[in-house]
């Protein structure tokens, strides 16, 4: 008896359905929306607090840009972004990226995805894309909610940049998107690290905590002047470096350096994740 090869007859799709499914599962989880809602609270609280305190801040007092919020509502989202970057964003990214593989393993759904068969490399790619999409969603949440609440509570008009020049509202929207892009790209290295850690365990909480911890450790190392030689290699080094995007003309050089560094982290940690996951015994 010859073995009929039924696979020849079946057409193989590029497999984008799995990506669609990943995004829809991610964004149908209450947890995802709770985190985005918490992210949205940052600009809201910030704007309300500034609005309620009558006293004018001296320039440079408080977080960067905070002194400008009262003059122009568009600065709410920038300030909120600066506030969220060190801990809050890494916390939510850590939850999503740490959950990628470990969460499926913990539920036991990993074995069914692999038996379907999802393909281990394809699954990793889709999971990374899902985490990246969450980064974008989180930074856009800061931007959109910040702009709305800023427009609601404060005057909106031409923006005076850090360098003193003034740009129109349309130009400022463009700059805001550039900042969101910068922050999203900044977080991709952390996503890849979380993905790798997630392949090491079937306890998602452990992977989440380890990912968040690494981002904090990296920032602490980045703050120690004694370790200056190490600083160019830290994935958190450029996290707050988007001031250049708000000068005239926009200075994209740090964006480039940062993107390159994140790309390096993605390459290394994705390779590590694949090396670990490709041959891993799935026993959960």
């Amino acid at each position, binding site marked *: 008896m010859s073995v009929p090869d039924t696979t020849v007859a079946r057409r193989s799709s590029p497999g984008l359905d799995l990506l669609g499914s990943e995004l829809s599962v991610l964004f149908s989880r209450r947890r995802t929306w709770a985190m985005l809602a918490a992210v949205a609270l940052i600009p809201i609280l910030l704007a309300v607090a500034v609005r309620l305190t009558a006293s004018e801040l001296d320039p440079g007092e408080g977080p960067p840009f905070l002194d400008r919020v009262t003059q122009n509502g568009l600065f709410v989202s920038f300030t909120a972004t600066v506030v969220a970057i060190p801990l809050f964003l890494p916390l939510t990214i850590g939850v999503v990226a740490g959950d990628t593989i470990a969460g499926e393993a913990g539920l036991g759904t990993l074995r069914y995805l692999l*038996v379907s068969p999802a393909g281990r490399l394809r699954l990793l790619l889709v999971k990374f894309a899902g985490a990246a999409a969450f980064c974008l969603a989180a930074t856009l949440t800061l931007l959109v909610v910040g702009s709305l609440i800023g427009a609601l509570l404060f005057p909106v008009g031409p923006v005076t940049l850090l360098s003193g020049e003034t740009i129109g509202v349309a130009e400022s929207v463009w700059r805001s998107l550039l900042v969101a892009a910068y922050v999203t790209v900044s977080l991709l290295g952390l996503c890849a690290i979380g993905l790798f850690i997630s392949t090491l365990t079937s306890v998602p909480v452990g992977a989440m905590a380890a990912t968040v911890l690494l981002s904090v450790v990296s920032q602490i190392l980045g703050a120690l002047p004694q370790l200056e030689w190490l600083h160019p290699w830290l994935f958190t080094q450029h996290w707050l470096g988007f001031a250049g995007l708000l000068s005239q003309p926009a200075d994209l050089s740090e964006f480039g350096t940062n993107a390159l560094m994140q790309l390096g982290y993605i390459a290394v940690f994705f390779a590590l994740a694949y090396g670990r996951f490709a041959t891993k015994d*799935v026993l959960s």
Partner: protein
Amino acid sequence: MTASAAADLAIDSRGLTKRFRTQTAVDSIDLAVPRGSVFGFLGPNGSGKTTTIRMLLGLITPSDGEIRVLGERMPDKLRNVLPRVGALVEGPAFYPFLTGRANLHRFDTADRHASRRTRPERVNAALERVGLTNAASKKAGAYSLGMKQRLGIANALLSPRDLLVLDEPTNGLDPQGTREVRNLVHSFAAEGTTVFVSSHLLAEVEQMCTHAAIMSAGSIVAQGSLDELRGAGESHVRVQTPDASTAESVLARFGLLPALTSPNEAHPEVSALLPPSTELDPDRLLPALLEAGVRVRGYGIEEASLEERFVALTGEGFDVRS
């Protein structure tokens, strides 16, 4: 084995071994599952059934040995093989926050060969087949044990399959569900699908399967068609009678070792093992019993059940090996 005989096997393993850090969970097993069979994979808890199934499906890498599934080497040809295999491994698993239907959609998207166009129909057909249509919109986290089990089976049926691998499919099912699974398995077999089903419920395997293998402590201790497996065991003579002690002495005269197997006052039953090579003609027993005045209410010569065979091969002990 010739090449054509090997091609007739849906699952063919040689020397398949899996060592965990401290123990050998599966120890050089040679599985031969004929195409079109309903193959029962029996064994006590911890004997290595699930570990074997994980290797067959490419979830874990064998420490040693070779596997062919549907004629192709695993795990090298995993991408060709697995779309033709439906599986339930170590119980069902789902996203508790998704509905039953959404869970099936999710798993179906993972199969690159599954068409998006036919997905809703295929999902509904699978739900219908396991009787979950009415609960399809409920969150899987709110499912009962048996409903989860049914959803797990539905997941294995999302596409037309050449092989179904079902690890303890009736676990947690009610009697109707159990019967339904049995009927499902029969209907797959009628369609020509090979079904590989692990279980420790022997009665179930006896009712469902055409072939079986018995695992014990990581090794296969018996394998073949059900008749071959039973035939290798001894047969018994059973006598139901109120005159148990007279019956025992009559049987003892033939050199048998009778025992009271049903010490129930109302329905005493005496049974004895018949020696395998028969110098004794079993047909002489009943006349002798009647002649001795034994009131025989029931009498039979029975082949060993699979259960007796199973216990004989895997040991009486209840404790799982460490």
